[in-house]
């Protein structure tokens, strides 16, 4: 397990004839996805555009995306892992338990048909969304898609891509990786980067009350996180940097208004396929950029006495 077989969105536009959306509602959440990248464009090798492509939607309920699909597979909530594991077995020609397959809401016949279509595709792609990654199974649901796609490459060209959330979450992931080696859930408390989702990831740290201060930038946990996390944020010194006064700002100790990135502040945004695009601000803002504020805070922090020991007496633990 491990790894990912993927491409940039232009490859999908130019080649994909079989597109699966799994656990997402692009019609509402990524409104330009169909028209820019995946369905309607005439690609270099898909000259017929929409007519040269088949779209399969897998979700727990009907959303506005269904009407754009050719095949809609309604899977029972929390059963994606079972479906994907079954598909991996069917790909290898192994027998599966028909009754347990039926519990997923999709019959064995339907899944057999799906796997055959996938094998016959010239270039297949699975876009997977938060309906998959945030439901029971979480990262292992993602792993299931990644593994299936890797194995499909023994038969035909197949790729997958996570459909990322709003803001520059991909950019944060990219920068974290090049500077720490890890995409998120990073602790620098021992002076070097350590990674352990569940131990150092934000919700877990907050719910366990493992931190005694918080700086929130570009997010609004006060609106989205479980109540114990919010209560903890309210009880410790919390600092918020945001163009708007958010739910988190209202329970924070300090709120600093900053310029809107992309409108007034420059930078780079990384698209869901990790292509970097320049941000070209068009309006001036009376507020400082996030970058300016962080730099000024860092200057003050540098004046404090060093807190890490000059040499490590203990073995740094992984």
């Amino acid at each position, binding site marked *: *397990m*491990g790894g990912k077989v993927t491409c940039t969105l232009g490859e999908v536009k130019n080649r994909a004839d079989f597109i699966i959306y799994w656990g997402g509602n692009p019609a509402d959440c990524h409104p330009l996805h169909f028209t820019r990248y995946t369905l309607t464009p005439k690609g270099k090798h898909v000259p017929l555009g929409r007519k040269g492509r088949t779209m399969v939607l897998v979700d727990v309920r009907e959303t506005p995306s269904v009407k754009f699909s050719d095949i809609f597979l309604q899977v029972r909530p929390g059963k994606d*892992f*079972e479906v994907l*594991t*079954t598909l*991996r*077995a069917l790909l*290898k020609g*192994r*027998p*599966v*338990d*028909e009754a*347990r*397959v039926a519990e*997923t809401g999709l019959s064995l016949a339907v899944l057999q048909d799906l796997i055959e279509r996938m094998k016959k595709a010239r270039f297949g792609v699975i876009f997977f969304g938060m309906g998959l990654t945030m439901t*029971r*199974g979480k990262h*292992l649901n993602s792993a299931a898609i990644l*593994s299936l796609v890797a194995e499909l490459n023994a038969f035909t060209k197949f790729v997958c891509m996570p459909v990322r959330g709003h803001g520059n979450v991909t950019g944060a992931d990219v920068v974290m990786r090049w500077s720490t080696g890890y995409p998120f859930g990073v602790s*620098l*408390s*021992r*002076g070097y980067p350590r*990674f*352990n*989702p*569940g*131990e150092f990831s934000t919700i877990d740290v907050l719910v366990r*009350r*493992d*931190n*005694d201060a918080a700086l929130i930038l570009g997010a609004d946990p006060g609106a989205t996180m479980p109540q114990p996390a919010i209560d903890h944020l309210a009880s410790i010194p919390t600092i918020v940097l945001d163009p708007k006064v958010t739910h988190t700002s209202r329970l924070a100790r300090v709120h600093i208004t900053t310029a809107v990135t992309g409108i007034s502040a420059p930078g780079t945004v990384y698209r869901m396929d990790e292509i970097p695009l320049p941000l070209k601000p068009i309006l001036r803002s009376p507020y400082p950029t996030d970058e300016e504020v962080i730099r000024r805070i860092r200057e003050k922090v540098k004046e404090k006495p060093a*807190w*890490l*020991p000059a040499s490590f*007496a*203990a*073995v740094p*633990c*992984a």
Partner: protein
Amino acid sequence: MITLTLKAEPGVPLEAEALSPDVVANLSHEKVRALPMFLGKRQVRVDEFFEVDGDGSDEIEIRGDCGKVKWLGRGMTRGRLIVAGNAGMHLGAYMKGGTIEVSGNASDWVGGEMSGGLIRVGGNAGGQVGAAYRGSRTGMTGGTIGIGGSAGLEVGMRMKRGTIAIRGKVKDFAGIEMKGGTLIVGGAELRTGAWMQRGTIVSLTPIPLLPTFAYACSYNPAFLRLYAPQLAPLGISIPFEPTDGSYLLHTGDVAVSEKGEILVWQPRAS
């Protein structure tokens, strides 16, 4: 025996990998008190958080609610570590030998990637017991872990050898991508044995199974009779007498292999 009694609750987690028989065994009382731990980002002395009684020894007793004290017994190869209370994450991670006993609960990652030794937790454990750390191809490769209560997600993830016995129920993905070894659970939630390559999972109560497992037969495997006495020191008993019932054998996970087995106890209807 050296005794450390927690005298102040750490607000943020305390990382105490220095509290291991290998580190403490030959140190003087003063030196043990001066051993470094990390409270968040600051290095602190052991005696800022523990009353220390005795000289360095390879038998350590820790008293108090150490639910936020992480890495106790990390990498130990010998001796005995007793926790009269709860223990924090990564208890006995990378352990090679010796014994750890916890009277209360433990947290996530008990015995992460351990290769030998014995860990016994009286209460509950968290997730990832005996598991591979993220990205590692292999988890536990030897040793024994016994949990008296329940445990969380991904118990025994990618374990290769050794024994894990959980008296209570575990959450999803017990034995995921297992390569070998034995995992015994009182019960489980979903997706037990997902993507397992080899190894044996034993459940003492019925559990839901993935479509990629197939029923093979009902029998009383000889090896369990041999195993049972080994589990006694963990306070865990497993049934094996034909007069009491038998095990339903399921093989899988055919998504990746056919060599894994899940044995589910079925008591004889009286």
